[in-house]
């Protein structure tokens, strides 16, 4: 079983809320759910939609095969294009030749609720259409909004009973298992980091990372995470440096434009050997670009971020579960190796809501190597791995610096010291690679003789298409250091890269590191891939 529907209207119609409640409704029935949200960079008006896919097996992408459309606005009904089996619209606002009119606005008026509550009517209708349990929906509203839920509950019931009299029932959903949690990639990354000991989150608002800020501003109080929104992104990154120096596990979040502002600080972290985890949530760029739309255009930018050479960790999760694990793994790794790290997310992953099956105990707090005391502390003591044991003030006199320095942290410029300290830092690259060899840097989603290589949120859709076509699908989770050892298998194969960009950043990495030439299946119009599109495009390549 696998179906997909759309709720559409404009900003201010509560589309995201409706999509999230819909996702949770089916998740409470025990199904797997994936909800993609499309919206413009404005607060009222325009076009806004939630596309919700429900399945009895795992889903990591929405689908272009939608069967139901609920249109809260006329322009949203018009944009549909006739693919839906059932179209439901608010007949108190406009009329349509085909489709089922439900007087949603009237219902809201009757209930004395503002227009935005129409979305509850829509949910009642959908509950009927899919034969879901209206009681589950009502409980969901009450769990979510407490005493403020009654208008929603009432309107959901009105929608449900109106629909039951007039609308077809497409399916008869039953409870398919235990309720599953529904998270966005943003929430998953936040929680994974907290599981690995996160105590500080600093961010300046920027789509599509802002939700982490909002989520932790609320949940952080309970989870022991101090959340600060400084004056700008430079302050964010530098403040994080100060916190890491004093021993605080800190993460910062932004998008490409904000990360661009953090470049000088990023390089400082490399020189000072301070562990800060950055969430870089990509959106359609360059510059302000299409700020609420999707892209994977910043991979090379992140891999080479900051002037000068220094080791770094870069990882990119495919979905919310992966975001949970990688955020946790990365926070531990940046502390272990005292390097900056980037968790490279993207709009589709960040904001889509999905059922997850996380095993929180898989992530825990790993302590870095601490100084054991003794003589004078040398912050940059030279070791075979390049990693120096850590201490924090006031336990020791700890001298860190953005200048080149000697082992004790005093400024140095003589050739011998400069060369030695440079070597020490760069040696950590090998140490990190050694550690990664024991981990899963590349995920094989499915097997086959020809291979698709992909990264980030393109992976689930690509994997679905590959499964259908009998292709291998490999998702590169760790991108720096680049896990050549897990990718040697590609040599001599026919390979295609699937990524939401124009230039083929991952493709260029396969060339650089493996001399493997791949076809690029790219997209750069701000929209994520769907499995259906990829089946089509992969067929062209591998035909």
């Amino acid at each position, binding site marked *: 079983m696998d179906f997909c529907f759309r709720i559409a209207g404009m900003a201010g119609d509560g589309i995201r809320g409706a999509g999230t409640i819909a996702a949770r409704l089916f998740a409470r029935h025990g199904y797997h759910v994936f909800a993609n949200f499309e919206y413009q960079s404005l607060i009222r008006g325009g076009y806004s939609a939630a596309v919700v896919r429900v399945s009895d097996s795992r889903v990591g992408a929405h689908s272009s095969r939608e069967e139901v459309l609920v249109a809260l606005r006329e322009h949203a009904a018009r944009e549909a294009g006739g693919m839906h089996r059932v179209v439901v619209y608010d007949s108190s606002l406009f009329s349509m030749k085909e489709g089922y009119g439900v007087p949603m606005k009237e219902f809201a008026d009757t209930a004395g609720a503002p227009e935005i509550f129409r979305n509850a009517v829509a949910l009642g209708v959908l509950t009927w259409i899919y034969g879901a349990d209206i009681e589950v929906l009502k409980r969901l509203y009450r769990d979510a909004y407490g005493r403020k839920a009654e208008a929603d509950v009432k309107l959901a019931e009105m929608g449900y009973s109106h629909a039951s009299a007039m609308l077809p029932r497409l399916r008869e959903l039953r409870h398919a298992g235990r309720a599953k949690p529904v998270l966005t990639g943003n929430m998953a990354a936040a929680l994974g980091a907290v599981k690995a000991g996160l105590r500080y989150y600093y961010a300046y608002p920027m789509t599509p990372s802002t939700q982490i800020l909002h989520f932790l501003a609320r949940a952080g109080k309970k989870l022991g995470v101090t959340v600060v929104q400084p004056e700008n992104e430079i302050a964010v990154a530098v403040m994080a440096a100060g916190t890491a120096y004093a021993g605080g596990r800190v993460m910062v979040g932004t998008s490409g434009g904000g990360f661009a502002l953090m470049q000088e600080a990023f390089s400082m972290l490399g020189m000072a050997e301070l562990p800060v985890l950055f969430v870089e949530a990509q959106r359609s760029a360059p510059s302000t670009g299409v700020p609420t739309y999707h892209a994977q255009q910043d991979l090379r930018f992140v891999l080479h971020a900051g002037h000068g050479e220094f080791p770094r960790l870069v990882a990119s999760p495919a979905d919310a579960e992966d975001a949970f694990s990688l955020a946790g793994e990365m926070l531990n790794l940046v502390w272990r190796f005292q390097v900056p790290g980037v968790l490279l997310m993207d709009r589709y992953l960040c904001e889509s809501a999905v059922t997850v099956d996380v095993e929180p105990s898989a992530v825990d707090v790993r302590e870095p190597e601490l100084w054991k005391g003794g003589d004078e502390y040398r912050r940059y003591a030279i070791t075979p791995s390049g990693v120096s044991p850590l201490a924090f003030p006031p336990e020791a006199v700890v001298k860190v*610096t953005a200048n080149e320095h000697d082992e004790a942290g005093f400024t140095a410029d003589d050739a011998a010291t400069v060369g030695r300290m440079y070597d020490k830092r760069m040696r950590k690259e090998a140490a990190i690679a050694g550690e990664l060899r024991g981990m899963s840097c590349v995920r094989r989603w499915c097997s086959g003789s020809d291979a698709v290589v992909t990264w980030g949120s393109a992976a689930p859709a690509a994997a679905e298409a590959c499964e259908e076509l009998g292709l291998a699908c490999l998702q590169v989770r760790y991108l720096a250091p680049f896990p050549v050892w897990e990718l040697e298998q590609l040599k001599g194969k026919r390979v295609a890269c699937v990524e939401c960009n124009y230039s083929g950043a991952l493709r260029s990495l396969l060339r650089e590191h493996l001399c493997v030439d791949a076809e690029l299946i790219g997209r750069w119009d701000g929209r994520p891939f769907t499995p259906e599109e990829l089946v089509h495009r992969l067929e062209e390549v591998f035909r």
Partner: protein
Amino acid sequence: MMLRTSQKIVWCPGCGNYGILRAFVKTLEALEDNAGRVVLVSGVGCHGKIADYVGVSSFHTIHGRVPPVLTGIKLADMSLIPVGFAGDGDAYNEGIAHLIHAARKNTDVTMVVHNNSVYALTTGQATATSPKGFRGRSTPEGNPEEPLNPLLLLLAAGASFVARGFAGNVAQLTELMLQAISHRGFSFIDVLQPCVAFNNTWELLRKRVHEVKTAGSREKAMELAMDPFATGVFYRESRQVYEDAVTAPEPTSTVEQVLESLR
């Protein structure tokens, strides 16, 4: 704890920075056991080298970014005493945004600006506080800009402790540093610092610098701030400190519980 490290000082002979260093070492001596909790943060410029010379924990950061480092340290460990040393180019040009917001937020940290009215380490260009007409290497025909009044600006931004010292008056400067550190909130000290290489103001300052009494109100302090040679504590007020307001308490929930609530 050695308050002076064995690093060779590479400031020019006669540089005002020596006075600031001396005042800070005296301050640390006066702090006794608490000196071990001091974390020195310095910017980039001649002033920034102070990190090498003082035997306390230190973070020699990038140009203009002293205030966020101070805040980040304080948030991580409230028992620490972060004290920043920045240049005028550092604090009033490159990083002025941070200074203003730190003043407004009122984190309990101290910020000392080595104000020599010149970018010294890059060999003498005009900064925000260089006098109009100043001939530097990027203004060979004279600086066309009006100098900034940093005290006025910090007062307008809401700083809760605003002072000015003079590198030539180590006793007073030590006293100012001690007061700044003991003040709970964002403490700002602008230090008039002659740069013998690019802006030698020793004579001028020795003649003109004088001390004023702390004003009773911000408005009055702003009037005092119109005098570029006045030194002393201009203003001081007690206000909520930032870290008290934002720091998260110990956790009361687990990630597992939050995940449960999202089912």
